[in-house]
Each structure stands twice: as structure tokens, then as C-alpha cells.
């Protein structure tokens, strides 16, 4: 029997498990293949929904479904996170002391926000990367009655459109509340333009200029002085704020660091085959890789589709049949009722189009369609 063990039940792990279960359904029925999915939780969260929780447009309860309900029959699922990767002996050991041998291992444990890594950020800045933080951000926005809103972005971070989306959505939120003329926006960004993607940065600059949003680039947060309400940058700037909204720096999850699989919790990964460097039978998906690509659900989605095809071919023919070409597709909310998108791969940069209401509606529809997407039906 060939054993495939997938560690991590987020977007990438769930799509991959379902993709493989369908491709290898006859082998699974014949007990020639077993697919085991190990996750830290028996719930699955739609993480992009946190942005809407921060504006009171989704309830946190709406972000969850039971993990089992999303899985194809035949997948063995345990809500039992891995604590030890014993790659020399092709096995993993879980928190509950269960040992799982494998022929092929896939690691997709994701990333987490680390506001505590910058002095003062956890205490004084809002963010949207956990349910508690997103709900707190909504309370902060509701209470805010005018002043200077500063947006700061840590490196690296998950979902690269969030700094822009938060800014545009706050702009429209305060406009709806009738206090926009009492709010000053100051957007900061770590590199020399307003977004990583050059074309998105150019587009955002035009939008910011027309909305009167100020900005400072080459700005990396060093610390927050909560008493003086000031942000200090690594580059030497000091910026005053009344409301601080952050995109905290991220790292891989602790189990990756504890098993010394990669600096920062990011596992060295081949960008085309998704194999872990030095381990032919270990693959890495999504945020967990060190590939220089967006840490986003859509990245994990496209990687999972390529890897599903390759793992099925490895089981059946002993070869891999395709390369992951760096495909990413990200929606960009440009306010409360307009959106655009960025679609790109390793060779082709995005060409963002002017935002429309139709793309915004499609994004809202995708917030529901996600559950079909993660089942591998979309």
C-alpha cells in the first residue's frame, strides 16, 4: 500500500486531499493507496473572511465549517497535529503520540501573524489576522471619531493585498459614517512603491492621490511608542497616529521551527516541483514554502492542483508530469463596492484593470463559493 500523509488542513491541504482522493479513488477502494490528513483543528476557517469581520460585514461564526464535511469519502482525517517529523525514517509523530509512516509526505501547515515580534505592535495596533483581532478592529473603527489613521506593514506577511484593501475599505467605512473629512490617512509600505506588484502599486498610487491618502514608502516598522502614539521606522522616520492598523510580520508555525525544517518556519522548496530541498518524497504547499511568491490561499490552491496531478502520477507511473508555474490570482477590494484583481505567474506580471462593482460582487460570491473550491469542485 502507498501511503500519502498530508500535514495541515488549511486551503492547500484540503484541496490536495480531495484532488488526490478523486484521482486515486479506485486505488483507495482497492486499499492500494491511503491518504491521511492530519490537522491542528477539526474546524476549517475561511481566512479571507476576517477582512469582512473587521468591518462588521461578516460574523466570525460564518467563517467556519467542520473539516470532515469538506472531505471526500476515503480520506483518513485526524484532528491531531504533528509534533515530530522523522524524515530519515519516513514517519511523523503527532501530539497524541500516533505514528504515521508515509511514502509521500506533504507539509502545508501555513503561517501565523507575529505582532509580538515588533515592540508595541501587539499592544497598540489593530490587525485582521485572527478572529479576536478582527473583531477588536471593528470595535476600534466603530469608536473612532476622527484623527490620523496610520497603516503599517510587516515583512513577510500573508495575503499581500490586505494593506491596500484595509485602506480602501476604511476610507469608504468612514465616508459612510459621514466623518471622512475628519480622518487623515497615512499609508506606509516597506519597499519603494505602494505595493509589491509594480503595476498594482501604480494603480494604487492613482487611487490614493484622488482620495487624498498620504503615503510613505521604504518604511519598515521598528517599534511603537504607545504613550506618545508614534510609530518608529527602521529607516529613521517617526509618524504620529490616532488609530494604528497593522499587517503584522508573519512566520511559519512553531512545529516547523522546532523540527529545524527552515529559517523563519519557511521550508526550502523547489519552485517548480514543490519538493522540499534534499527530500525527494517530501513536498511543501502554500505559505509553508520559502518560494518567493505571494503567501495567499490562491497560491496554495494552484500549487495543490499541480501537486495532486504529480502525486497521482507518482503513485501510478512513478513519475511527475507537470511543473507548478507560479500561478496566483488575488482579488483586490478597492472600497465597499468596487474591486479588481491581479493574476500572474513566474513569467507574467499582472495587469490590474480599473475596479468595477461586478468584480466586487464576484468576490462576495467567492466568499461563499470557497467551500466548493476547497472541496475541489471549483
Amino acid at each position, binding site marked *: 500500500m502507498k501511503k500519502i500523509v498530508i500535514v495541515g488542513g488549511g486551503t492547500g491541504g484540503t484541496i490536495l486531499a480531495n484532488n488526490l482522493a478523486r484521482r486515486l479513488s479506485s486505488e483507495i477502494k482497492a486499499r492500494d493507496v491511503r491518504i491521511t490528513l492530519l490537522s491542528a483543528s477539526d474546524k476549517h476557517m475561511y481566512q479571507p473572511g476576517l477582512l469582512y469581520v473587521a468591518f462588521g460585514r461578516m460574523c466570525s461564526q460564518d467563517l467556519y465549517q467542520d473539516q470532515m464535511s469538506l472531505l471526500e469519502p476515503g480520506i483518513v482525517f485526524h484532528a491531531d497535529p504533528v509534533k515530530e517529523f522523522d524524515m530519515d525514517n519516513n514517519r511523523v509523530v503527532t501530539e497524541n503520540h500516533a505514528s504515521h509512516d508515509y511514502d509521500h509526505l506533504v507539509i502545508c501547515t501555513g503561517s501565523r501573524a507575529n505582532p509580538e515580534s515588533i515592540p508595541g505592535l501587539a499592544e497598540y495596533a489593530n490587525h485582521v489576522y485572527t478572529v479576536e483581532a478582527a473583531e477588536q478592529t471593528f470595535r476600534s473603527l466603530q469608536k473612532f471619531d476622527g484623527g490620523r489613521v496610520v497603516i503599517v506593514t510587516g*515583512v*513577510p506577511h500573508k495575503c499581500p493585498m490586505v494593506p491596500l484593501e484595509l485602506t480602501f475599505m476604511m476610507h469608504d467605512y468612514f465616508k459612510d459614517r459621514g466623518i471622512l473629512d475628519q480622518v487623515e490617512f497615512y499609508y506606509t509600505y516597506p519597499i519603494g512603491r505602494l505595493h509589491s506588484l*509594480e503595476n498594482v502599486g501604480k494603480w494604487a498610487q492613482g487611487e490614493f492621490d484622488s482620495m487624498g491618502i498620504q503615503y510613505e514608502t*521604504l518604511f*519598515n516598522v521598528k517599534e511603537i511608542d504607545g504613550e506618545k502614539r508614534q510609530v518608529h521606522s527602521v529607516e*529613521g522616520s517617526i509618524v504620529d497616529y490616532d488609530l494604528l492598523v497593522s499587517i503584522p510580520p508573519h512566520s511559519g508555525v512553531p512545529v516547523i521551527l522546532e523540527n529545524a525544517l527552515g529559517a523563519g518556519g519557511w521550508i526550502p522548496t523547489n519552485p517548480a516541483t514543490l519538493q522540499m530541498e534534499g527530500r525527494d518524497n517530501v513536498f511543501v504547499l502554500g505559505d509553508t514554502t520559502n518560494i*518567493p*511568491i505571494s503567501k495567499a490561499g490562491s497560491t496554495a490552491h494552484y500549487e495543490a492542483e499541480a501537486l495532486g496531478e504529480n502525486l497521482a502520477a507518482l503513485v501510478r507511473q512513478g513519475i511527475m508530469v507537470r511543473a507548478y508555474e507560479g500561478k496566483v490570482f488575488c482579488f483586490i477590494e478597492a472600497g465597499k463596492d468596487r474591486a479588481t484583481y*491581479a493574476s500572474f505567474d513566474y513569467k507574467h506580471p499582472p495587469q490590474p484593470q480599473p475596479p468595477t462593482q461586478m468584480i466586487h460582487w464576484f468576490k462576495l460570491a467567492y466568499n461563499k463559493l470557497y467551500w466548493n473550491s476547497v472541496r475541489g469542485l471549483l
Partner: protein
Amino acid sequence: MSKPIQVDARNSFCPGPLMEMIAAMNLAEVGDELEILSTDKGSADDIPEWIKKVGHELLDCRKEDEVYYIRVRKAK
């Protein structure tokens, strides 16, 4: 002398070479050398600009077979 920490940001549109380098710099120790590989021509300008602004050390910047090799040292 220890080998530089290599940051292979070739073909990276997002987050891009400078963001990749800042992430690696955040993990590095003072005195560590980093070598960034980039296929983005803007990197040859914006990485040295950031290095100078923050006060790190630019050791080398060269182009070979359409790839930029930029070596820096974390100074603080």
C-alpha cells in the same frame, strides 16, 4: 569566512526581491552576509537605496546572464 545567506528571488513579482531581502534580513544576525539573486532590473536600484537608507553595507552588485547578484552585510 562563512557562506552568504542566499535569497533566490528570481522571477518573483510578489513579494519581490526587496521584500524577500528584508524578510531575510529580519532573520539574519548583525554581521551576516546576504546574497540576493534577482531577475528584476529595478532591484539593482531599489535594494542599494534601501541598504543605504537603513545603514547596512552594500558589498557588491553585478549582473550575469540576466541575473543580478547583490551582496550586502547586515550592519545593525
